[in-house]
């Protein structure tokens, strides 16, 4: 009928216009300006191997977005939306430099190193303890982390350092550790009592030029944990591999393994509020660390007049 026709035409025209707008809006959306999160470029799938577990990067995509991207960013570069509020900053996975390793400075960590770091979290930082995630999920996330840098394709992980068996905790061991702490000049950053107040402490910056503080051994009550763990073996590895990306260097080339254990024992006594075998030994010695004397090697019964070589420094 004549009355309806113009209405229908108008309706048709309106719908056509709406459709045109919708289509062009869609087309425009695909040409969106270069802002906002970009989904990561397709990357080579990676695997991780931790004991009997095999992790697959493809299985971790949703977990990463849910649990990790908020701080570490969609691109894994440490620039997540939470990053401006955080100190220390979230790890930048794209440069593949990691703090807590069993491998020498400058080398990639093992899959197990990353697995432990995720599960343990990082004390004194915003990195949570992710032991709440199933082991398989954490293994998948390790594989996912490896997709952010092509170094994982081109380089092998470093060879883990050997950590020898821990010798007994004695006051002599602690005394030797104290001597090493002085000779190796740890106090320049950590301070004479390990309170993080050494002469160089105030000017320290990490490898991204952000101010960073040296570890304060005296703080933390009975549960003083380190960035990279809580056991004596963990402390050993910290200064024998260095904390890459930070001012803390590796002392692997300048300390012998037994001497390193002496240093570990001394460092435990700097954690003054923590119950430990080392603090017990120190208390038994009335809280006084005696000066350390080098043990003199027994002179062999021979005509050799050379002086005995004492223990190495």
């Amino acid at each position, binding site marked *: 009928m004549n009355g309806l026709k113009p209405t229908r035409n108008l309706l048709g025209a309106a719908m056509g216009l709406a459709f045109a707008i919708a289509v062009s809006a869609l087309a425009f959306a695909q040409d969106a300006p270069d802002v906002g999160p970009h989904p990561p470029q397709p990357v080579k799938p990676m695997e991780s191997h931790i004991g009997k577990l095999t992790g697959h990067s493809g299985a971790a995509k949703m977990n990463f977005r849910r649990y990790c991207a908020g701080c570490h960013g969609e691109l894994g570069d440490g620039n997540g939306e939470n990053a401006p509020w955080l100190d220390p900053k979230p790890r930048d996975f794209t440069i593949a430099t990691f703090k807590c390793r069993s491998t020498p*400075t*400058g*080398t990639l960590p093992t899959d197990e190193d990353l697995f432990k770091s995720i599960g343990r979290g990082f004390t004194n930082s915003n990195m949570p303890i992710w032991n709440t995630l199933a082991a398989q999920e954490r293994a998948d996330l390790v594989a996912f982390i490896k997709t952010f840098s092509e170094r994982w394709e081109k380089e092998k992980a470093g060879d883990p350092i050997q950590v020898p068996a821990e010798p007994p905790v004695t006051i002599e061991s602690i005394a030797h550790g104290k001597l090493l702490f002085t000779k190796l*000049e740890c106090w320049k950053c950590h301070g004479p009592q390990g309170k993080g107040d050494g002469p*160089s402490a105030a000017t320290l*910056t990490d490898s991204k030029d952000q101010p960073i503080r040296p570890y304060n051994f005296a703080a933390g009550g009975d549960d003083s944990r380190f960035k990279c763990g809580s056991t004596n073996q963990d402390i050993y590895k910290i200064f024998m591999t*260095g904390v890459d990306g930070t*001012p803390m260097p590796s002392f692997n*080339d*300048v300390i012998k393994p037994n001497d390193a254990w002496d240093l570990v024992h001394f460092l435990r006594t700097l954690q003054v509020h923590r119950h430990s075998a080392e603090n017990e030994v120190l208390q038994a010695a009335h809280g006084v660390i005696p000066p350390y004397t080098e043990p003199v090697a027994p002179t062999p019964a021979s005509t050799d007049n050379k002086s005995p070589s004492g223990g190495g420094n």
Partner: protein
Amino acid sequence: MLRKRIVIALVALIVCPTLMFAAGTVSGKVTFTGTPVKPKPIDMSKEPSCAKEHATPVTTETVVTGPNNALENVVVYISAGANDEGQVPPQAVTFEQKGCQYLPHVLVMHTNQELKVVNDDQTSHNIHPLAKVNREWNKSQPPGTPPISEKYEKAEFISVKCNVHPWMHGWFAVLNTSHYDVSKGDGGFKLPNLPPGKYTITAWHEDYGTQTADVTITGNETKDVDFTFKAKAY
């Protein structure tokens, strides 16, 4: 006809070896325009063992200038046309920590060439090259310990620091070529032993940036190439 050919052959025999062993040189000066920031004196009082090594305080080395607007510590090298990427020199280059300073301030080396780091001071240093393309490592080097031996696989300009002594700052220039020089004193540089060919010369300064120039060597000539950098106000 045959005699002509013999003559041509003889001439070629004489000329060709001369061409084969022809080697030109690129030399010139690096200067600056404008007013550079004055070097600041470095306060080494927190490290008395180093402070006493210097009768007058040393100054910052970010911009080091010489007479007639000469600009020092500019790495001038062949960035294209050198074709000696695979020829790694067998000898090591040495980076010295002395008086809580790095000597030289800019150390140039070929990729995969051995680098030796030496501590001549009575204090510990940590040697921390902040590599971004190569691997970043950080090692403690107490006094009296042996030199640290390392090498870098990829070309990169690497900033080097000591965390214990925050004023210490130096550079590793890891290049794909051995045709390089560092401007000193009067800002002069010299790149000899260049076979005939087309070359790109790059000049790098740690603060004033990078410049390039193209040059062609045909025989034994010396080509003059100068670089002028614009000083920064801060």
